[in-house]
């Protein structure tokens, strides 16, 4: 645990993090995670964060050392896509029992690694620590070391038990594990002056593949994506890249910075969301590579692609521009996504009436201010009740958020679009932006809104005629029960995640 608390402190001290640098010495020690409030907390733990960051590595066996909750309640629930191996979607856990808690679970862990190697033969096994096994003192680092020696394969300890902090901390601890045990342990077959790393991109819904064709066309090779659609070997030899792009602003900043320090791989922070950001990112990639010695014609090639793609995009936008002009959007998401999506939506004329900045850095907030003006409606911690009211009162016409808050919008009978990790559509690059706009348009213009907002026959005095009521489906189940009250036999009922 001592090594772990040192690691946590080190991660908290991230010098490249703008938010961190703005703090005083004492405050920095306390860490970047807001103290969680019992009874008023939401969100995942450090283990969750570590798993999110690393599970997209597709050919690795991800083994969770702990009781059934940590893997059994959550496996195969993320949208990272693979072009090849599907091993990453197999749930592996030691599923420790009471005896293991009493006598220790190290033996079971060791045997589990052996079983996985025998049955599935992955290039590596990642072993995730959890609260219970950390508390009883299972030394996963020692077990992994012994197993690596015994079986001749990399068995990597991911020491981010849930109770050390939140998801973001877990992202970073996962990054530390890659830096300590994986990156720099293999060599690529060959290198080119056009090799880059993309750090913090998880290939959700296949978004990496929306961008990759353009990079291919530029002649840029993704040596390693950390961690979307990655193979273990690719991460292991990622230290040979010439430059890097860091995608998700806070999640893996430590990887980008330390690879710069250790291997002189310069990086920039960019985003694939929105036209401006996409243009900037392609330009930055080209620029960094040229600075590192790639032929300068890469810059022209890149400009040509940008011009073509942008023209195609605006052409695709023609039918939507008028329709979406001035549509009021409530955007609830975290970190980098806030400003990059804000700029994206503004490009097609939509108005952002509020955006959450809960997970954003100072820099993120500054960017939002630049985009939305000084009176930007930034919401630090909006309760579900406030979101519901904003939608119900039509201060916003559509909400874009993560899956867990979707019902706040839907129960207010307002359009909603998923822009978080469980989403089914890919929104990256130029084509992704077209898709996002199409999806927003589809949500707004769906004919259901008028129907579902119509009152039930027993809520109005004048019973609507058969033609104009359509097929109202708002009958509650217990309208069948013998004692229908005014509200159809049910008192208004629902439940929404924690306040």
């Amino acid at each position, binding site marked *: 645990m001592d090594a772990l608390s040192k690691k946590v402190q080190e991660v908290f001290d991230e010098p490249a993090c703008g938010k961190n640098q703005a703090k005083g010495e004492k405050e920095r020690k306390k860490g970047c995670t807001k103290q969680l409030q019992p009874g008023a907390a939401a969100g995942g*733990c450090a283990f969750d964060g570590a798993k999110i960051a690393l599970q997209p590595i597709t050919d690795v066996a991800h083994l969770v050392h702990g009781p*059934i909750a940590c893997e059994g309640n959550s496996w195969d629930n993320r949208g990272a896509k693979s072009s090849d191996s599907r091993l990453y979607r197999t749930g592996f856990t030691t599923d420790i029992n009471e005896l293991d808690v009493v006598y220790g679970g190290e033996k079971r862990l060791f045997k589990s690694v052996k079983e996985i190697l025998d049955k599935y033969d992955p290039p590596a096994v990642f072993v995730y620590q959890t*609260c219970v096994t950390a508390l009883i003192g299972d030394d996963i680092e020692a077990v992994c070391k012994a197993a690596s020696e015994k079986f001749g394969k990399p068995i990597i300890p991911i020491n981010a038990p849930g109770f050390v902090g939140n998801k973001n901390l877990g992202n970073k601890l996962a990054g530390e594990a890659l830096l300590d045990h994986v990156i720099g342990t293999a060599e690529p077959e060959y290198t080119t002056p056009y090799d880059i790393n993309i750090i913090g991109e998880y290939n959700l819904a296949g978004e990496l593949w929306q961008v990759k064709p353009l990079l291919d066309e530029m002649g840029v090779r993704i040596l390693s994506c950390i961690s979307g659609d990655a193979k273990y070997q690719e991460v292991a030899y990622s230290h040979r890249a010439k430059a890097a792009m860091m995608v998700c602003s806070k999640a893996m900043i430590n990887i980008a910075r330390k690879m710069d320090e250790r291997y002189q791989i310069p990086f920039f922070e960019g985003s694939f969301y929105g036209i401006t950001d996409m243009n900037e990112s392609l330009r930055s990639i080209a620029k960094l590579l040229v600075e590192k010695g790639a032929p300068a014609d890469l810059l022209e090639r890149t400009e040509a692609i940008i011009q073509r793609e942008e023209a195609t995009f605006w052409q695709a936008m023609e039918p939507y521009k008028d329709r979406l002009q001035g549509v009021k959007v409530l955007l609830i998401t975290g970190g980098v996504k806030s400003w990059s999506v804000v700029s994206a939506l503004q490009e097609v004329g939509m108005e952002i009436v509020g955006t959450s900045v809960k997970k954003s850095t100072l820099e993120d907030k500054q960017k939002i201010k630049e985009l939305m003006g000084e009176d930007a409606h930034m919401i630090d911690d909006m309760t579900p009740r406030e979101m519901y009211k904003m939608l119900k009162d039509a201060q916003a016409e559509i909400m874009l958020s993560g899956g867990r808050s979707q019902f706040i919008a839907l129960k207010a009978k307002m359009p909603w679009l998923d822009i978080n990790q469980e989403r089914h559509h890919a929104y990256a690059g130029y084509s992704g932006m077209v898709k996002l706009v199409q999806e927003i348009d589809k949500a707004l213009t769906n004919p259901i809104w008028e129907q579902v907002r119509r009152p039930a026959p027993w809520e109005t005095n004048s019973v609507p005629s058969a033609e104009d009521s359509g097929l109202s489906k708002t009958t509650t189940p217990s309208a069948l029960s013998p004692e229908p009250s005014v509200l159809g036999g049910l008192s208004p009922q629902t439940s929404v995640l924690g306040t």
Partner: protein
Amino acid sequence: MANVTHVKKSCAVNPLKMSQPIGAALAFMGLNNCMPTLHGSQGCTAFGLVLFVRHFKEAVPMQTTAMNEATTIMGGMENVEQAILNIHKRANPAIIGIASTGLTETKGDDVDGYLAAIRKKHPELDELALVYVSTPDYVGAFQDGWAKAVTKIVQELAEPGEKIAGQVNVLAGSNLTPGDIEEIRELVEAFGLKPIILPDLSGSMDGHVPDNFSPTTLGGTTLAELRSTGASEFTIAIGEHMREAAQTLQDKCGVPFQVLESLTGLDANDQLMSLLAQKSGRAAPNKYRRQRSQLVDAMLDAHFYIGGKKIAIGAEPEMLSAIGHLLVGIGAELAAVVTTTHSPLLEKLPAQEVLIGDLEDLELRAQGCDMLITHSHGRQMAERLNIPFLRMGIPMFDRLGAAHQVTVGYRGTRDLIFTVANMFMAAAHEPAPDDWRQPVADGAECGSCASTAAH
């Protein structure tokens, strides 16, 4: 009679099982104006919450005591207190249901003791009902957590009282959907009885659109009803795992009970009809006589398609038992059976072997089966096995309508039979010229088996 075995391996692969605390949390979700709360790290709650949101496609109220490294080692008294005060202030529920987790059980937090101390210190919370249940993650499975929570709810909240004529308790098992519970309510009411259903997910998780916003459950068994369970004339426990709760209620309040193992199948529903007729002194309404007849007809029509089929099923003991007995009763064979936890039901299953294991075990044994039945996590293996896949149980995240899947009553059984038979019909093999040609003598398999296996 099945041979129950525990799989001997160290690493679980593709878990079928989920943990006790979230089973308990779902039971608490069946109480009105309640906030289910896990005493553990915030991840314990987040995983459960995401799972339920994806299953029910509903907002889910669930809180956490947000334990960290330091508070775990120092003990969680302060966190439990803070959580209760915060929830009381922000959501003001009538009931807070607290379930422990692996983390706080490993430390050994005495939550009952904490609650007594908190009660003493905070008289302003006198009106707030608190129910605590011990549910370590490393023991048992989802349905065990559910059962323990229901037992603890009646133990804490049921009050002995003068019997109320016609009032019956229905203790609902964890395998029942909101749709099932709605059906059961109708059944009981049809005999002129007044049911108190516990837990009642049909009010809280049935996917309706309310006129207002609430941070707690809205719908479910009310606190007044919970107290009144002690004054009921009778308790019907649906599912063997509800026995302990029924027994507790009898011990505490003298309410006699009967356990019905399931409400799926002809025999199971005949038992229910007899019981309700006897308790109410009324004959079975015509509606159900007709429905029984429809079920009998469905069995006749469907046995052509279900008879002889090999089923691979992975489910918690209660669901396994209900579905297993039904399908075997129509001529199918339970060829591969995996479950999550111990139960007296397992030995009684009409199968050779029941494994307590995971979906890897099921996949290994499911080769050559005609249908896979399990929750949504079976989707990867169903693809590999290339056989029809009936999704049942929690979680069901890749289909809509999980809350309204009804498999109880004559009518629900009838529809389930149709669903299964239709899947076999859809996957039926078209005869081909070489189906009956003798294979070259290099395998034991006959031609027709080989062609079936190809589907």
